[in-house]
């Protein structure tokens, strides 16, 4: 009896939906799992809002921890069961586009209000593959801001702004290192992870070097790049030991308990520091005297999968999630929508203007379908360098691998 009633209700609901000429649509949205507490609730609230603005569409959100996200997406795509929409790390877009897994959004974008000038240019360009648009920027960040422990700086009598130059950073690191008291100038991380690569890149970029030259050949062993690598190697004495297995996340606890005077992180690290009792500030990267600090772009784009039967609804969802009044509520990196980013940063982050400027300057990593192999070679290079191999030799070794791809 009860089930019959439920059945009847269900049937009437379905016919009501079809009566409006709309099939009920379920959108599957997969996202990298964020760790900042509370974000998932905000994201759910935004999804609810989307569903009420778009009757007939429901969104099923699946979050996956970052370390497994790539594997999970690959398995689903290869298994013919991709979601309708997912966030994609900027560095995956080219490969997914080349694999034919995600849709060309060029036409949808040009037919809509979404356009390049609403977003950070570096983020927009990261979704470009062979002149076509394969994603809409969702969030961005830049590596790396150099965070400082102000109390330790004051005690040593060092002006934090002095570390904007390479010489200044090294000098400060030297003065602030006191292993006997468990204090180190800065934390270097060289584990096998992308955070190792993005920090290295920003030093290379800031010295005028590159990862890949414009003709696609390896640029890591150019004089400008090698100079940057040598500089990084010269910082090793001021870092706690264990660089080869340290990640940026491992450095967090050391910075929080006052063992580190400086650390490289994206703007995302701010909420953690805000919750602590630490007196901190940051400098937007550093460059050799007379050059400009250039950060490495990071972030996520929203992509629609080719297999999705609901591309129009998916596009509506993307438009919604990147809208000025929504984008800031659903990210913990910086919103990719510039207007949303300004509001977001002023409300949630210290030094909004400095962050905006650094983001404007930041450079993307090579947008190549084989980027992950390039990155792997670069990680191996940094592990060689942090193990004591001369930078030139390590870079030549990496370039041999990269040029063979």
């Amino acid at each position: 009896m009860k089930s019959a009633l439920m059945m009847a209700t269900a049937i009437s609901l379905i016919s009501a939906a079809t009566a409006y000429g709309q099939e009920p649509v379920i959108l599957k949205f997969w996202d990298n799992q964020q760790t900042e507490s509370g974000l998932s609730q905000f994201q759910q609230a935004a999804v609810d809002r989307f569903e009420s603005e778009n009757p007939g569409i429901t969104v099923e959100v699946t979050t996956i921890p970052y370390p497994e996200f790539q594997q999970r997406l690959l398995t689903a795509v290869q298994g013919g069961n991709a979601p309708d929409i997912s966030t994609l790390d900027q560095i995956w877009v080219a490969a997914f586009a080349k694999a034919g897994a995600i849709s060309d959004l060029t036409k949808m974008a040009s037919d809509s209000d979404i356009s390049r000038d609403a977003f950070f240019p570096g983020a927009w360009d990261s979704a470009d593959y062979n002149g076509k648009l394969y994603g809409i920027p969702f969030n961005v960040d830049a590596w790396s801001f150099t965070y400082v422990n102000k109390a330790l700086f004051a005690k040593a009598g060092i002006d934090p702004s002095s570390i904007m130059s390479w010489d200044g950073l090294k000098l400060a690191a030297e003065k602030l290192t006191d292993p006997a008291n468990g204090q180190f100038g800065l934390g270097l991380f060289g584990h096998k992870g992308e955070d190792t690569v993005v920090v290295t890149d920003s030093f290379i970029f800031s010295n005028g070097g590159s990862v890949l030259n414009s003709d696609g050949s390896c640029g890591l062993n150019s004089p400008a790049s090698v100079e940057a690598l040598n500089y990084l190697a010269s910082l090793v004495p001021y870092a706690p030991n264990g660089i080869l297995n340290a990640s940026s996340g491992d450095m967090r606890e050391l910075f929080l308990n006052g063992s580190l005077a400086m650390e490289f992180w994206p703007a995302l690290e701010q909420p953690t520091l805000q919750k602590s009792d630490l007196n901190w500030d940051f400098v937007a990267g550093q460059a050799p005297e007379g050059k400009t600090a250039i950060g490495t772009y990071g972030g996520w784009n929203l992509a629609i999968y080719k297999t999705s039967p609901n591309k129009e609804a998916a596009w509506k969802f993307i438009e919604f999630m990147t809208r000025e009044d929504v984008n800031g509520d659903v990210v913990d990196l910086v919103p990719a929508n510039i207007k949303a980013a300004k509001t977001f940063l002023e409300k949630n982050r210290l030094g909004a203007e400095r962050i905006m400027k650094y983001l404007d300057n930041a450079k993307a990593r090579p947008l190549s379908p084989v980027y992950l192999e390039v990155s792997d070679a670069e990680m191996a290079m940094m592990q060689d360098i942090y193990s004591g191999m001369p930078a030139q030799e390590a870079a030549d070794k990496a370039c041999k691998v990269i040029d063979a791809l």
Partner: protein
Amino acid sequence: MIKTDKWMIWAFVGPTVLLLAVMMYYPMIGTLIESFYSTSFINPKPEFVGFSLYNKIFSSGNFGIVVRNSLAWTIGVVFLQNLIGFGVALLLNQRLPGQGIMRALILLPWILPGVVAAILWRFMYDPQLGIINSFLIGTGLSNTGIAWLAQESTAMIAVIIAAVWKGFPFSTLVFLAALQNVDREQIEAATVDGASALRRLFDVVLPAMRKVIVVNVILTTILTFNYFDMIWILTRGGPRDATHIFPTKIYQVGFGQFRFGEAATYGVLSVLMLSVLVAFYFIAQGSGRNKRAKA
């Protein structure tokens, strides 16, 4: 020999055969085929390339490292895990006070989800924050602490220790169950004859448990060889390639770099190498029987 009907054998073995055929052999044969094709995520139209992926791997220099690491890891973990596992099983079989609770407590490392166990150990090995270095510094055994997982010289032994901690309760469980099958009358007879505990162990207990020990060593060899979580979370195969073993290599090449064909090739080579290792055990088991007969 017991007389039986064929139908019974097939009814008993059938479900196993069916499941393994569909769920393991069918995919693995696919993997074998894939190892001859240039399959990758970004190349959806693969071509037949013969043995060229095999040649590429053999000539890359990585292969030798992976083989060496896999051997060190597998043999190290299996030896320590079974030795400790057997010792603890003997202890727990002594009817000592509190042994009931101990039997449950000792299983704890094995119960802990693998991912969590690995994260816990990574944290314990942390050069600055880890409890292991705090202990070493506190007791004056080391001045600055040791970056266990970040040095090529210590990384392998560190991951082995973590894996042994996680895995030895399994061996204990198996040996404890097997100890119950050792004939008590035989032990008592040996005791009456004045044999020492050690003599009883070598003359009565070990021979009686030989079959279980051999099976368990082979089993733990197979499980350890393919044990992925621990190393992946502790070091991702680093520093440099110091802890890269077959499963981490397969995962990194396949899911990390999208090169499915090459990952398949590593997969096939992995099965081949493990088969050789297990075959070696079977041969050693035969000669071990002779040695023991002499002793």
